[in-house]
């Protein structure tokens, strides 16, 4: 009968394989495992055997040397899965390419399968040495990209966490608001009713019906006004939320990865072209008419004096500036033909 429900089955039948004490004798018994060999034993056994330094596993036939600090509680009921997840954790840590890094979906899928294959090899203990070697080589070759991808992952996780807490907070606020609204409404109705009663008590009997009707109408009006107000607020909130979402859309970050023998189909990394200087006319170049070429100096009686005056030069005044301006002013408007433009305009 007890075995019908999960807890008691799990709890009462468990016996430590090393010291054979059961939960019946020791209700606080905890089981620990060591990722070296995944043999289960109770906490007191671990203390007893491994407190004085590394020792070999007490399970018969297993001669692995275990250390106390590696013992930990078991997450999964199935030891096989526990071990697989441990292996997976290690492999995924190294082979952490992301879908964006691949040329095609097909390549990414192939990569996923390859990774799965390697994990399966390690789990089933086939070809362990070769797989380990491959992993090692990949890890040393692609240190940088592994790090980068880890960083991206962490960032994603933390941003997700932040978003979740934010959402929860918002939901809580909305819930509170709704509760308050209902409360207010109830209070208002109550107040309206009391008000009406008091007026009925004081007023004459003739207009009783009128008062009652009026009171009812006021209530109705209030509630409809409140509803439309609510709607308005909600719409606003919805609009706000939409824009926020858009803003927070994560931009896939660029990554760098060196080509490696292990993974195929990685996208070639393009170094972005250096940005050109800002061009306000978007590449529009006005038609050039060379009416003149600017000379170093122009002969002029009164300018010559200035040119040779060190005081002027010391003040930062440059004559070439003056030449250029004067020339532009002199030739300005020569390329424009007003008649043509007028004719064009009248045609249009």
């Amino acid at each position, binding site marked *: 009968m007890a075995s019908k429900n999960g807890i008691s089955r799990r709890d009462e039948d468990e016996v430590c394989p090393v010291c054979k004490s059961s939960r019946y004798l020791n209700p606080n018994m905890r089981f620990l495992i060591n990722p070296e060999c995944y043999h289960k034993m109770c906490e007191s056994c671990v203390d007893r055997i491994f407190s004085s330094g590394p020792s070999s596993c007490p399970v018969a036939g297993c001669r692995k040397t275990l250390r106390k600090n590696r013992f930990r509680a078991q997450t999964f009921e199935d030891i096989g899965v526990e071990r*697989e997840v441990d292996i997976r954790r290690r492999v995924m840590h190294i082979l952490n390419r992301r879908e964006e890094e691949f040329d095609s979906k097909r390549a990414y899928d192939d990569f996923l399968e390859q990774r799965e294959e390697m994990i399966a090899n390690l789990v089933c203990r086939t070809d362990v040495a070769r797989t380990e070697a491959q992993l090692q080589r990949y890890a040393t070759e692609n240190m940088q990209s592994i790090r980068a991808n880890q960083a991206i992952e962490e960032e994603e996780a933390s941003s*997700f966490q932040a978003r979740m807490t934010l959402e929860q907070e918002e939901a809580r606020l909305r819930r509170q608001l709704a509760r308050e609204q209902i409360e207010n409404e109830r209070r208002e109705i109550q107040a309206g009713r009391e008000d009406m009663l008091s007026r009925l008590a004081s007023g004459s009997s003739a207009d009783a019906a009128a008062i009652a009707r009026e009171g009812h109408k006021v209530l109705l009006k209030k509630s409809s006004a409140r509803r439309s107000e609510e709607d308005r607020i909600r719409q606003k909130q919805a609009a706000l939320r939409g824009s926020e979402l858009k803003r927070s859309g994560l931009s896939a970050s660029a990554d760098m990865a060196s080509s490696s023998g292990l993974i195929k189909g990685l996208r070639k990394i393009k170094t972005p072209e250096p940005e050109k200087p800002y061009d306000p006319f978007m590449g529009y170049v006005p038609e050039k008419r060379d009416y003149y070429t600017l000379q170093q100096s122009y002969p002029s009686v009164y300018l010559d004096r200035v040119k040779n005056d060190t005081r002027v030069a010391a003040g930062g005044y440059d004559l070439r500036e003056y030449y250029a301006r004067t020339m532009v002013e002199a030739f300005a408007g020569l390329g424009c033909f007003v008649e043509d433009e007028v004719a064009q305009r009248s045609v249009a």
Partner: protein
Amino acid sequence: MKFFIDDLPVLFPYPRIYPEQYAYMCDLKKTLDAGGHCVLEMPSGTGKTVSLLSLIVAYQQHYPEHRKLIYCSRTMSEIEKALAELQALMKYRSQDLGFEEEFRALGLTSRKNLCLHPSVKREKSGTVVDARCRSLTAGFVKEKKERGDEVDLCVYHENLDLLEPHNLVPPGVFTLDGLLRYGEEHKQCPYFSARRMMPWCNVIIYSYHYLLDPKIAERVSRELSKDCIVVFDEAHNIDNVCIESLSIDISEDSLRKATRGASNLERKIEEMKSTDADKLQSEYSKLVEGLQQAEQAREEDQFISNPVLPDDLLKEAVPGNIRRAEHFISFLKRFIEYLKTRMKVTHTISETPPSFLTHLKDLTYIERKPLRFCAERLTSLVRTLELMNIEDYQPLQEVATFATLVATYDKGFVLILEPFESEAATVPNPILHFTCLDAAIAIKPVFDRFSSVVITSGTLSPLEMYPKMLGFTAVMQESYSMTLARRSFLPMIVTRGSDQAQVSSSFGIRNDPGVVRNYGTLLTEFARITPDGIVVFFPSYLYMESIISMWQGMGILDQIWNYKLILVETPDAQESSLALETYRTACCNGRGAIMFCVARGKVSEGIDFDHHYGRAVLCIGVPFQYTESRILKARLEFLRENYRIRENDFLSFDAMRHAAQCLGRVLRGKDDYGVMVLADRRFERKRPQLPKWINQAMLDSETNLSTDMAVSNAKNFLRTMAQPFQSRDQEGISTWGLADIEKHEAKRKAEEERATHQQFMNGHKMDGVVTSTVEVEDEYDDDIDQDLMMLDAQ
């Protein structure tokens, strides 16, 4: 009788028609013409089904498009009833037209109900029948047979292959029984005949699930064309059906079975590797190419299909890490183990799918993408392995479906982990509820796909709630009142007992001895004055039990026994059906009986108490849902946040639709009569939420009664009802002959004309000129009798 609606000739299989039936047909036709969805509420027992069928069949046959009708109903008995109704209609049509129309109509229900195989049909459980049927009919079994292996095949199914694929059954209307008989005669499988004939049918009648449950709809209703007319009858509960079709409960036991299933699969894979490695290899290469969609050919013996909406179909290739069978198995095992660890909680947890997925990824490195493909991958694997005893893998399939759903939908779902069955329980029995909160998700593809969807029932008030919850816009929303020649039902709201103390089932006072006693006297009084059967509805089993035991203590039950037998509905279906049978016998032999039921139970939904089976219905307390349930709370919050339906509005709407449904149980036609009592002071304010036809029949003076007043009212009413009443008296008022329809049309046209005329006149500013051209005949009833006499003579 034959009449025209606009230019559409309608053949109606009865000599008389109710005015509301006529109005219903007119509105229905308008909707069909306009193309769009509609919500129609028609009083119960006024021939909704027949008017619907006769109009749509007429529409089908008259217009060249021959739009197919898909009629969805709730229970098997309702499906059978609709089919019989349709059969009568088609018989009438062929008599009237003088020739048989090319017409096919079939009903579809589960294999369990339609199986003819001598040993399979004796199985009790539906899933076992399904599985055994599959093992006898699946494509690979046949291949094996052809290869010379010794395997069993179903003869009935095999015979189908000898027939023309589009002419498995002759034209005509087959009821489910008729189909079984035909199948037995011709030794062919009724289930597969119906399934395969679906594309060639004019009318298909089946249960909601074939259209709403994405797991089934994908297989059954896939090739229905866009211009089909879809009708959901008795649709007042459609939102709950939608939600249930996407919700999954996983218990610890089912997880254990799923693990076993996964290990079995693993063993099978090993076996296959040693014997028939090519097959696995070919499956693998198909998956690599992403060709599985084209390849699948969607056989009818598919194991499960993707529970995701059809338009969301995953067209992509299966992700690489579950491509190989053995990788997929280890993937499944990891997922199941993870769920097992989650089951060890000690307090209730509710979680959104995204946070569940993150936690899953942290612990087991299962990502979202392969999870989405879980159901599809499992189907493919099961097909490749050619498994025979599929029912063993049911729990595994459930887990896979769950995986796919949880990875597909971020919004509108919630995971609730409850370690204890009830609050009082000390022994944990954890259940993982994966609950859909949004009814619109399941029904969306239906609205998207079909141009006309009709939602109809006896109780749909308030009408605007349904479009809101289901996320569609209705071109027509209509509620019809009931035209009656005499007042044949008496709805009343009792708010006080005879001692003027208020009665209510609200939580604070529901167990007050005073309240319980007042309810008791109310029932005793009604037992005294009402002939034959009385039906009493309670808000919950719990309350019913407590009130019955209190009545027993007060000696109220002893008093009632002087007048009536007492029978009680229980959660057990067989016990309840026995109680119902006894109740019927007691009503028939004159002893009279009282049936105690629960407002959300089986009885309140599907059982009719027509005529003497129900002369009075008492609704004791407002049937609110149990608001402490986590699932309901989550749904309420979802409705508030997404559809702006406030908690209290929804709860009250839900309670009132159930109350109305209970009240409707006793009135199943116009010659029927009954008293309807709503006994709770809170009903007084909820009156506007009742359906129009009940609300209109309720006088203002009858909304705030005490027990003694209600009893004297009812006594009066029952005395009036006992007077002789000929059906002749109804004619022209609550039943129309052809002449009445014509008159009604003429009147309507005249009114329209007058309206346009008036507009015209106003437009031209010709003051003072009142046209006297249009004179409406108001002496409506005078010469009707003559017409009717003539009709009768014919």
